[in-house]
């Protein structure tokens, strides 16, 4: 274990090379619905229990299944209405269990990025070889069912090892959602030395963090989203920012929570200088236009401070 994950350098949020998003947009806005499969009775990982209670964890399992049975289609209809294409954080096993959901996303030209195989199979304790196998399995499964290799990664249940980012970069990925250190994309060190970046994904805007962890009231969640947007939109005039709303349709798509979410989407998409994008589109654009300038700027600022 080491005191710093050594994935990125300190890079102050001022005087960075200016980012301008396509068509002069100030903010890149993306929505990342998590489409997940939680197993009722998975093999137990010695480092983290899948469920807080003994099998069968009826309540915790069944509310997550609600997202698949009831929730996703609600959010799809809502995102369609506001011209937003989702970037799916996908438990690859959903391709096997529920191909209808995958088809509904494909019909909408949504992006899929890897979120492991199941959200009840954690990275903890895996050898590097085992983790590589799991990541490649997810990449291959997604490619087989959607025709495209995933460009992004969010580790299953946000469970990581020291190798996670390297392994995903070696599997052909270009961005990670696992880091929460910035409101703009930024370079990430990988041992293969290829351009690889972090895209802001936001735990603070994550509906499960808001609802299940922080126990926020639905209308306050809607207000938090608007406030988050206002600030990033304002700052985006100086240099383009990224705002993400990560969602889980067993949370945000419950009947009592959709109104506040819809109001927030309506508010955001009602602004002129918003680039409604997917994770891959943001990553591609950033790597093409800003990666080198950013990497140089980081080097320079590191030099100044040392």
């Amino acid at each position, binding site marked *: 274990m080491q005191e710093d994950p050594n994935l990125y350098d300190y890079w102050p949020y001022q005087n960075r090379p200016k980012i301008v998003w396509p068509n002069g947009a100030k903010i890149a806005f993306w929505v990342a619905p998590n489409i997940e499969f939680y197993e009722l009775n998975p093999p137990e990982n010695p480092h983290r229990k899948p469920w807080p209670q003994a099998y069968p964890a009826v309540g915790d399992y069944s509310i997550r299944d609600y997202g698949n049975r*009831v929730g996703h289609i609600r959010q799809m209809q809502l995102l369609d209405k506001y011209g937003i294409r989702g970037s799916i954080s996908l438990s690859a096993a959903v391709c096997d*269990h529920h191909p209808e959901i995958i088809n509904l996303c494909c019909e909408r030209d949504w992006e899929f990025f890897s979120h492991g195989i199941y959200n009840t199979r954690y990275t903890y*304790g895996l050898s590097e070889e085992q983790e590589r196998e799991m990541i490649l399995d997810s990449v291959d499964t997604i490619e087989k069912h959607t025709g495209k290799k995933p460009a992004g990664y969010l580790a299953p249940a946000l469970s990581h090892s020291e190798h996670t980012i390297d392994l995903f970069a070696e599997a052909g990925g270009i961005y990670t959602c696992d880091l929460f250190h910035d409101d703009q994309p930024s370079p990430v060190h990988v041992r293969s030395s290829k351009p690889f970046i972090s895209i802001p994904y936001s735990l603070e805007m994550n509906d499960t963090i808001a609802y299940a962890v922080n126990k926020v009231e*639905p209308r306050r969640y809607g207000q938090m989203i608007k406030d988050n947007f206002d600030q990033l939109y304002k700052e985006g005039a100086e240099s383009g920012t990224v705002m993400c709303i990560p969602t889980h349709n067993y949370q945000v798509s419950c*009947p009592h929570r959709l109104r506040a979410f819809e109001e927030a989407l309506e508010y955001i998409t009602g602004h002129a200088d918003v680039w409604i994008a997917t994770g891959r589109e943001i990553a591609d654009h950033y790597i093409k236009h800003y990666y080198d300038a950013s990497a140089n700027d980081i080097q320079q600022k590191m030099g100044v401070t040392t």
Partner: protein
Amino acid sequence: MSLERDFLEYSQRSRGMDHDRYDWSMLHNRRKITWPNGKKLALWVNVCLQFFPINQRGKPFKVPGGMTMPYPDLRHYSLRDYGNRVGIFRFLKAFDKYGVTPTFTMNTRLAERNSYLLDVIKERGDEIACHGMHMDALHFGGQNIGDERELIKRSLDVLRNLSGQDVTGWLSPARSESENTPDLLAEHGIKYFSDWVNDDMPYEFTTKHGCLTAMPLSNELEDKFILMDNLHSEQSYADQICDACDFLLTESEHGGGRILALNVHPWMLGQPHRIAKFEQVLDYVSSKKSVWSASASDILAEFKSRS
């Protein structure tokens, strides 16, 4: 460092669910139904009538809402009992005022101990469902099947005898089940149960003793979840239910009939500072022209006859 091989093996990774309890099905692909008289939204108000023993054993876990202090925990015992003495009578007035048909899901031990309250419910003629023996008689993973069978049999036999009703509905205390609970419920004549929260409409559950219907009793919209677990305000409770009502009514226009299921506790919403918010909710929902208030059994019967 590595994990056992089985951690990267996925024996259930194929089409459908990872168990054989129910079929995989997306709500929007199902046949659309309409409730009686063209109504769009069935209102199921499920009142939990509970007995929390003060000599709580807490095995294998302390029931949420139960005793937390060293014995005798008078504060929690009496605060829960408040619901059965005071809160419930505020509920009944409100139901009558707004023309709402409630369903009472009752711990059998409460029916045994409190014949006055049971008689009040019986006289009203409302449906009584079983909420297990009492709040400390839990069903849980690893429970001995013989013990659980006996617990379910006794809970149902006694409640059926005292209530004079068939008692075909079930909600487990703390919604906690063993792997055998659905089988044992079906074996003892239960037609619907409400522990699983994976749908907004009824669906068929497979058991060793035939079919059981899972009725959608939202936990996310439950008074205890919103007010006690999440510490949201009373006004927010009312807002959330009204927003859910509006959403489901809108969805029913293209998706077919829906159910607004409100699980409520008289020890929670029956408090003086909360009852007006609950009344506000009942007023709002019952004033919608497309809402049909009915018992859980009636909703299920209509659902089965129309789907």
